[in-house]
């Protein structure tokens, strides 16, 4: 990594917030939607019923709040740092999601899937690392 102007403390703090809030938000949404169950749409009434269930789920609200905090951190950091810097810095979030899913939601994750998640993190890191060159 180069010591470009985007690497101040505030960049790191906000990227840390992104990595903290983003994955937790997704995990919370997942918990909420699992409680509601698989969506099947047979009539327009189903959509309304599911909408009401979504609005009544505390986990969905928590997830939305966390993702909102993620989003605000993301918007702020994007006002000075390049998208192509911020995006790869967030690559670790893919591993963090899998870790939370495993430890908080007790999702079974096969070794193949862990390997896939690690390869994705590596790929995202490489994608971003190159895109700063013009």
């Amino acid at each position, binding site marked *: 990594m180069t010591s470009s102007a985007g690497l101040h403390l505030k960049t790191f703090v906000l990227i840390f917030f992104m990595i903290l809030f983003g*994955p937790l938000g*997704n*995990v919370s*949404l*997942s918990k909420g*939607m*699992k409680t*509601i*169950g*698989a*969506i099947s749409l047979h009539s327009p009434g189903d959509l309304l019923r599911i909408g009401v269930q*979504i609005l009544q789920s505390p986990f*969905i609200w928590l997830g939305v709040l966390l*993702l909102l905090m993620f989003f605000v951190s993301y*918007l*702020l950091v*994007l*006002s*000075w740092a390049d*998208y192509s810097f911020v*995006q790869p810095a967030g690559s670790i979030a*893919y591993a963090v*999601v*899998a870790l939370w*899913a*495993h430890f908080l*939601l007790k*999702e*079974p*994750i*096969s*070794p*193949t*899937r*862990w*390997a*896939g*998640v*690690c*390869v*994705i*993190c*590596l*790929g*995202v*890191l*490489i*994608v*971003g*690392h*190159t*895109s700063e*060159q013009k």
Partner: protein
Amino acid sequence: MAWETVLLLLIVFAGTSGELCVTRAMKTIGEVHDFRPSSLLRVMLRAIQVPWMWLGVALMAVAFFSLLGALSMENVSFVVPVTALSYAAGALGGQVFLGERVSRRRWLGVLLVCIGVTLVFLGRK
């Protein structure tokens, strides 16, 4: 399965386009220096006056509801890694629609992401 694929594609494509629109909007506003709540509020007020922000937020809303739909059927440790395909969409879109030159190393990263997503699919049990 088909319905689920549509949702995953929407998360990837609507999400990526939304982020690009929002980035463009924030760049027209300029760097945020002041983090007091009143100043942040002013930044937000300026942000909502940029049309790109609205388009971006609308696209991200589509991606969000698709995410909820996908999460109701699948594990989060499956859905979120699959959305990394947005890097492939970004590189492809940049080259095809914006005429950007995508470096060989970047394609290597995209290839790795695709391999990773394939492994995540294979490890579905």
